[in-house]
């Protein structure tokens, strides 16, 4: 496998990496950069636990090659807060019990952030559609939906 020298722009920082062509973005984030907030769940792009934002769009990092993400703007859960100020979604998820085991939570937060960035006032159906690619085995999604609505309302206020 050939080595590639790439720059990943993650959470506002540039990282120069040497990676194999077949290294996934998920592996690069978790193993090269120690950004373990992004999770591995199914290897097939079905569960959504590996979702990160690439140029603001939810992207399955287990199905994205690291070389294909080179130079693009990547946001992981570690970059969601603004310094000490947590994202409104992080606050609402904690407050309303939207995380149980918490394993799907980082990806869920990023998918929800991408939604609110384009639609600051989604109705429940729009939330369902936007987050349908993120599986959660614990919550039944009820409190996640409520948390997204609460965060949206606070963002608008």
């Amino acid at each position: 496998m050939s080595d590639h020298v790439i720059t990943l722009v993650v959470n506002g920082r540039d990282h120069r990496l040497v990676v194999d062509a077949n290294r996934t973005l998920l592996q690069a984030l978790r193993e090269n950069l120690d950004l373990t907030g992004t999770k591995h769940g199914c290897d097939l792009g079905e569960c959504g636990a590996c979702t990160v934002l690439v140029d603001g769009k939810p992207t399955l990092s287990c199905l994205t090659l690291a070389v294909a993400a080179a130079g693009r703007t990547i946001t992981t859960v570690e970059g969601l807060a603004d310094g000490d100020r947590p994202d409104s979604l992080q606050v609402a998820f904690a407050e309303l019990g939207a995380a149980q085991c918490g394993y799907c939570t980082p990806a869920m937060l990023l998918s929800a952030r991408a939604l609110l960035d384009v639609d600051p006032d989604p109705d429940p159906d729009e939330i369902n559609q936007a987050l349908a690619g993120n599986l959660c085995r614990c919550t039944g999604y009820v409190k996640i939906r409520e948390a997204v609505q609460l965060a949206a309302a606070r963002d608008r206020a």
Partner: protein
Amino acid sequence: MGHDYAVVGGRLPRIDADGQVSGRTRYTDDLKMPGMLVGKQLRSIHAHARITNIDTSRARALPGVKAVLTGEDFPITYGILPVSQDENALALGRVRHVGEPVAAVAAVDAETAEAALALIDVTYEPLDETVTIEGALSGDHTRLHGEGTGTNVHRAAALEFGNVEEGFALADHIREDVFFFGGNTHAALETHSAMAAFENGRLTVWSSTQVPHYVHRALEKVLELPAGRIRVIAVPTGGGFGGKTDPFSHEFVAAKLAMVSGSPVKITLTREEVFYAHRGRHPVLMWVKTGFRSDGRITSMAFRTFLDGGAYGSYGLASLYYTGALQTTTYKIPNYRFEGVRVFTNKPACGPKRGHGTPQPRFALECHLDKAADDLGLDPVSIRLVNSVEPNSMTVNHLRITSCALDACIEKVVAESEFSAKRGRLPRGRGVGLAVGAYMSGAGLPIYWNDMPQSEVTIKVDRGGGVTVYSMAADVGQGSTTMLATVVAERLGLAPSDLAVVTGDTDLTPVDLGSYSSRVTFMAGNAALEAATKVRDRVVEAVADKLEALPEDLVLSDGTVGVRGAPGSEVTWPEAVRLAIAAKGPLAESGSYRAPKLAGPYKGAGVGISPAYSYTACVAEVTCDADTGLVEVDRVWVAHDIGQAINALLSEGQVEGSIYMGIGEVLFEEQAFRDALHRGPSLLEYKMPTFLEMPAVDTYLIESDDPEGPFGAKEVGQGPLLPVIPAVVNAIHDALGIRIDEVPITPDKIVSALRDQNRGGEGRVGPTGIPEFEFPPLQRVEPPQGAPR
């Protein structure tokens, strides 16, 4: 119930929520150590075969490979139950299902480890496969355990309480039905993972486990290391649902690879491997026959279950008895017979999944009861209310019922859903269904016989007032860490977020048996409450001395200790703590919990007993498409008798998650096989509900104030799942008039039942009978005093 609690029953966030939402919570696969190797397991391609040779020489020669293991390295068997020690960490001489681990390697990276696995040459001699219940009972297959041919029966049970035939003689109406519950799996989003290090003669294993204490014991046995040289750490777990409740191959293998290689080793299972590790819901074939009086009262019931156990024992002996144990906890059954058999098949082993062995018979019983109500011209509500158990009673099979708000749960969901106005009156294609359930607040007995407490908690308070709670309870997402903090905070007048909680570490924390059987709130909660009460008493005594007040006049609230009705008298919590330490030394206290001795006088009585039972009632409303067979669950109402919520927000979350999992099981999920081959060991093929399939839910927590629960609390993690499945099935019947006596109810079954209905048939899909099997002689048991007559 009129209690004035400061934090118990509130809606405070989890105390570990910040770590979860920031991505800083570290799960096992997020851990790494310097010099850590990657472990991988080679898995069997055969369902049943002898291993005649394993040649690992080429793998060992590959650069970067640091250790290679085979079954020869693990001669000592293990199993979660003392009576089922039938597994080797790597197959020894024989494989019994596709995907069973056969060999393992540790290498410098994943690519090298995988390359090494491909260089291991295993020679198999295939054996005939047993893949169905009928096949296992037929007697002409190679036995999975033991030698020769015969039946593949794991265990059979036969119990009779009262006199079932006499009971049938009293009946005005007798009904028989047959049901099948397809197996399914937990599919927690985090795949299993274990990391091990061996340093200074001590082994440490970090694992995504629900049962660090049992893993500790199993490692001690299999690795022949003294328990004192093994430390097991239950890392925050990305979901369990019972799927991380056995000791698993990869835990032993990671440990041994670390010992052999001298380097830390981590093994994280792929999603496919998790489907082979399994231990999920048993497929169960069931037959039930019940006698009713004309007003619906049950006179007698006979219940038979046939469990497809897969290749190993796991919890199966308990699972077997659970399929017969809890029917009596919701309905007064004066005469009851249970006969069950669990068989071995060449498939991944089944075990406990949320509700462990009880969702299957609960599905059968609740659907059977609806059919009987139709026969008798009764409605689903009244047939349940006329039979519902009462608080402070005994069941015919010697289960002690204390608090019980079953009637209140039924009445609540029936009223809120307008069930009676809707049933039979919605347009064709829409319907409502009702069902109930009950579940244990912890198994009454530990898995291995002993007289020690089932849960121990220690609290240490430092001189600055900092409170640390130590408990081996493993937080698998259910919120046990927050529960412990809340119970202790309530007693000490603090906020849960003020407390530190150290959990799941066999070096640091006193024993808790683990997060299974919905035991943690009741048992660890009671242990924590006892420890906190001792801490409070020491603090109160010291402050009373200082203030020259009576101890009983002191109150702890908002981080102070003061005299009731004397504002301004308070000392701060840290000051109060220092007074207590000055008076009597270190402020560290322990508490424990041991369930009362509840087992009835018969073999098998250890399964089903519990210090308290939760009760649940559920109404589901569905819309069915008669052309496509698609079912949409529109709304679900659940009322759950929780005794007392320790945290209402987290308790609601457990109910909502149970509804979700129930909908997955009734409509989508099946661990299905083509002969012995898994039909789709991936999340691509194993379909589970997304946001789009999750209905609106209405959750009602009913507080019955249990006399023995901590602050009156009972379980909430498993019970609410039970009635969801039959409620949906009953709703489909109401919508279309068809009867699907088999879950999951996939669209093809609905279409097929409708075709049958259109041809003038009864519109039923389901099993038509049960296999011939000679159960053991009945063990006849006298009902206890106070059992229903």
